[in-house]
């Protein structure tokens, strides 16, 4: 049996069901709407597992599911060395969102990472604390800023309403997901010109964990044939 992990609710689940449906594989919730049990029609030997999108990377890496649908942002954030632990089978073309760095529009002197770095140095001198960047994507943001030589900042954890942290003075800048930039503008923020950390979309992954049976490998091939990927 091949276990396929799919986000258990919302647009991501609906779009995933639609994507598989268009390719001849019907995924659906079984039982009542509140139950997280699923069924698969159109191919044998594939079991649907409904999970929170944030848990799918971990379950894939652990080998508890064999295939999974989640955003590339969540996957890269949650799995160190992600490409040695999972493989991308197909980008799915929805759930697009950019992980970006945004600063107040009032910072007319800051348009690039180079500016952010200089502003951080001055801010630390002035306020005695490192410039705070609110995010929930700690690993991705830290690696990005390290690769681009930005110093004198600190990350503060923000699991929601991140755009409001600057106004509330719990952070000076943010690193967050945006699709249109509307919420950022409404909160007086702007995206840095070279501040795109990662362009994410929903993607079908397979786990690389050893221990797949021949049967599971064949099931995967059959599924890929049906899906045309």
């Amino acid at each position, binding site marked *: 049996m091949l276990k396929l992990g799919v986000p258990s609710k919302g647009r991501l689940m609906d779009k995933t069901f639609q994507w598989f449906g268009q390719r001849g594989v019907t995924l659906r919730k079984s039982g009542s709407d509140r139950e997280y049990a699923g069924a698969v029609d159109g191919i044998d030997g594939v079991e649907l597992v409904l999970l929170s999108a944030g848990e799918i990377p971990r379950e894939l890496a652990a080998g508890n599911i064999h295939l999974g649908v989640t955003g590339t942002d969540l996957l890269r954030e949650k799995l*160190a*060395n992600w490409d040695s632990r999972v493989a991308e089978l197909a980008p799915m073309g929805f759930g697009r969102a950019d992980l970006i760095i945004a600063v*107040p*529009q*009032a*910072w*007319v*002197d800051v*348009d*690039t990472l*180079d*500016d952010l*770095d*200089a*502003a951080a*140095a*001055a*801010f630390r001198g*002035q*306020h005695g604390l*490192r*410039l705070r960047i609110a995010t929930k994507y*700690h*690993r991705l943001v*830290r*690696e990005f*800023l*390290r*690769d*681009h*030589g*930005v*110093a*004198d*900042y*600190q*990350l503060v954890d923000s699991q929601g309403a991140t755009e409001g942290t*600057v*106004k509330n*003075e719990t*952070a*000076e800048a943010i690193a967050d997901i945006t699709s249109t930039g509307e919420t950022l503008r409404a*909160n*007086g923020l*702007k995206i840095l*010109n070279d501040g795109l950390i990662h362009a994410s979309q929903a993607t079908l992954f397979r786990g690389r964990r050893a221990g797949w049976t021949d049967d599971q490998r064949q099931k995967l091939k059959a599924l890929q044939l049906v899906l045309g990927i």
Partner: protein
Amino acid sequence: MPGSPEILTEARRLRDHFADQGGLVVKAEVLQPAETLLDLYGEDIRARAYLTSDPLRGEMVLRPDFTVPVVQMHMETHAEPARYTYSGKVFRKQESDETRANEYVQVGYEVFDGQNPAGADAEVFATIAAGLDGLPVRAATGDIGILTAAVRGLQTTDARKAALLRHIWRPGRFKALLKRYGGAEMPASRAALLAADDPFAEAGPDIGRRSREEVAARIDALRADAAAAPIAGEEIGLIDAILSLRETCPNVLSALRDIAVDMPAVRDAVGRMSARLDALAARGIDVEALEFEGSYGRTSLEYYDGFVFGFYASDRPDLPPVATGGRYDALTARLGQGRAVPAVGGVIRPDLVMGLSC
């Protein structure tokens, strides 16, 4: 296994060796307050060390090295000169290479002695080398002090020198800054900002703790920078020449003396290197064959600011260094609240020593 009996025996042998050289045996807590490390290294330390939080003591860290606690202990209690040795586990997160140990023993030797820095550099290097005697290792050396002296000696504004010095340990950003100060075109957005009659015309609401005055101050700084003359190509060429040095110590010394003719600011640092080589030779180190790399030691933990060295398994370039060390005067200044003590030290990893000898 990080704590196998063989490794502990080897650690004991090395610590005894350091104690025989005059090192006072000291210990440090496994769990350290994280504040100092966070202040020193910022966010990078979170990627490298295990941080945890204590409800009463705040953020704590599993010690990623002994140097910081040993410096703190020395600054609080002891007078110069002092020599210390220690042996114990350190803990490092490995985010990209699972095969590298995240927990291993370090045995170290630290010298706090401002009387004779060249002699102290040579003492630490030779003591570490003696601990590795007979093993198939090669040594690499460098000197961050030469690069910082060269930057301080540039014919340019203090603001530019400060920005370059701040990024000595981030080679990519350092290079980009040097290029811009050398006259490369500024980003279009900055040119537009500086040309604007009212830079704040489309500023949007004032939110957050960075005030409009701070933004205005940076615009002034950018204007001043735009008005400053570019750093001459010859001077940038000399910095590049220093960074690309990769030769035996005597050849590097001779090249640096040539550079010092055009850039007198490095003369003192080159003199210190020369004195160090004499002191190393006096301790029986074959300096004729000793390698020197101009950019050695520019890792992202801002730590060493003078002499730096590492010992590597000769036939295993993929392994981490068996031993590393260097001078960290700036660290003692930061931790000593105004009081600075010239200090140099090094550590050996007994687990890697065991791997070489069997």
